C-alpha cells in the first residue's frame, strides 16, 4: 500500500467524520455513519495484513482523539484506545472475510463495513462500560450499543456509494485491481 495517498484519504475522511457526521440525517439523535470506518474496511480489503493493521490503529486512534466523553458531574475526557482497538477488530474481521467476498464489488465493502461497525460498537461500549465501574465516565450502555448498531447499518448504506468511489482508487493506493486469485493482497 502507498502511504501518501492513504494519509491524504485519511485526512479527508477524518475531516468528514468530525465535520459532517452530526449534520447527517439522524445525526442529532447520535446515529450517523462512520467515514473513517469505511476507509478502514476499504484498506483492509486491499492492503497486506501488516499495512491494514497499522492503518486501522491509526484511523481508530484519530477517531479516539477527536472524541470527548462526558464525565458525571461536568467536564470531559479523551479516552485513547476504544476506537483504535475497535477499528483493529473490524480490520481483522475484514481480513478474515475478504477471501469469501468479491472485493471489487461495493456491496462487499458496504456489508463488511456494517459488520465491522457492529463489532467495533460492541467493543467500544464494553470498554466504556468497564471504565464506568471505577471512573466517572458517563455512559448509557444500552443506548450507546443500540445507536452503535444503527450507525453500523448507516455506515453500510453510505459504504455503497463511497465504496464505488474508493474502489476506483485502487491503483492509486497500490491495491491489486485485476481479477482476484488466491494469495493476492497478502
Amino acid at each position, binding site marked *: 500500500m502507498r*502511504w501518501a495517498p492513504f494519509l491524504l484519504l485519511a*485526512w479527508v475522511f*477524518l*475531516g*468528514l*467524520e*468530525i*465535520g*459532517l*457526521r*452530526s*449534520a447527517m440525517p439522524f*445525526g*442529532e439523535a*447520535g*446515529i*450517523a455513519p462512520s467515514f473513517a470506518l469505511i476507509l478502514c474496511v476499504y484498506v483492509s480489503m486491499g492492503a*497486506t*495484513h*501488516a*499495512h491494514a*493493521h*497499522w492503518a486501522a*490503529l491509526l484511523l481508530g*486512534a484519530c*477517531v*479516539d*482523539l*477527536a*472524541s*470527548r*466523553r*462526558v*464525565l*458525571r*458531574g*461536568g*467536564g*470531559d*475526557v*479523551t*479516552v*485513547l*484506545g*476504544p*476506537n483504535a*482497538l475497535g477499528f*483493529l477488530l473490524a480490520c481483522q474481521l475484514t481480513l478474515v472475510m475478504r477471501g469469501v467476498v468479491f472485493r471489487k464489488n461495493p456491496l462487499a465493502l458496504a456489508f463488511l463495513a456494517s459488520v465491522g461497525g457492529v463489532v467495533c460498537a460492541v467493543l467500544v461500549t464494553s*470498554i466504556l462500560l*468497564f*471504565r464506568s465501574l*471505577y*471512573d*466517572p*465516565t*458517563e455512559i*448509557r450502555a444500552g*443506548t*450507546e450499543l443500540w*445507536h452503535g448498531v444503527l450507525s453500523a447499518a448507516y455506515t453500510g448504506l453510505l459504504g455503497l456509494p463511497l465504496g464505488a468511489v474508493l474502489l476506483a482508487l485502487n491503483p492509486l493506493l497500490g491495491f491489486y485491481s485485476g481479477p482476484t486469485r488466491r494469495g493476492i493482497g497478502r
Partner: protein
Amino acid sequence: MPPYHHSGSSKGRMMLPLVIALLAGLSVLPTRWSGWVGQLSRLVVIPTGPLSGYVVSVTRSVLSPPEPPRAEELRLLEEQKQAYETLYLREREQTQRLREYIKELQQGLALNPDAKVQPLIVPVIGTSADLASGMLCLRKGTAEVDHNTVATTTGLQLVGRVTSTSGPACYVAPITRKGAGKLAAAVMTGEGRPVLGTILTPTGDGRLKGDVLRLEGEEGPIPTPEPGQLVRLLDDGWPSSSRMLIVGRIESVGPSPEDPLRPVIVVRPTLNIERVSEVVLRLQAAGEAPR
C-alpha cells in the same frame, strides 16, 4: 511500514502487540491519570480543523431552515431589543444582588467583584466524533479560554459552557445534552421582575424540562407560565456575566407527575444550538474573578 514477510518483519511483529497492549492499557486508564491524553487531540484537530470547519459551514448553511423574509431593519431592531432587554434585566438583577451584598457587608461578609466580559466570535469546526456527548468543537485560535467560559449565539441565546481546551480548539457542552447538568432559570411571565423560577434538566431531545417554583423572596399571586414565554438563566453556578441570558421559550406547560398542582414546563432554545456554525465566547476580562 514493512509487511511481515519483508526484512525487519520481526520488528513489525513485535511492535504491533506492544502498541495494542499500550492502547488497551490507555483505554482503561482512570481519568485522573489520563488528562494529558486530551492534549494529544490537537494532533487530529489542527490538521483536520480547516477541512471540517469548511464542511460544517457549508452543510449548516445548506441545512439551516430559510428564515422568513423580513426587512433587515426590523431584524436589527429585534436584535437590539433583545440585547437591551437582556441588559436591562441583568442590571436590575444586579442591583438586587448589590442590595443583598450591602446587607452581607453590613454583616461583615466578603464581596465578590462582578466579572466583565469580552465577547469573541469563533467558528464551530465540528463535533466530537463520539456523537453521544454532542460536544461542539470550536476554533479559538490563540485566545486564552478558561474552563467554564460561557458560549452564546450572537442573539444572546445560551449555548453552553467550555468543558476543555486543546491547542487551538476548545469544546463546549450544549445545555440541551444530558451530560450538561441542571440549570436554574427564571420564567419571564410579565414585564416586571421574574416571580417564577425553575430547575431545568435536559431531556436529550434538544429540550429542557423542569418544575416551576416561586423564586425566593417573591410574594403575591403566582402567575401561570404560558407557552411562548421566555426563560432566562438565573444560576449561581454560572458566571455572573451570563445571568439573564436566554435559555429558550416555553414550548408546553403541564402538571407535575409528583404534584399535580405544580406546573412543569418544557423549554426549547430559540434556535437549534447543536447546529450553530459560530458562537460567541464570553471571556472573563483580565483581573476579574469568575463566580
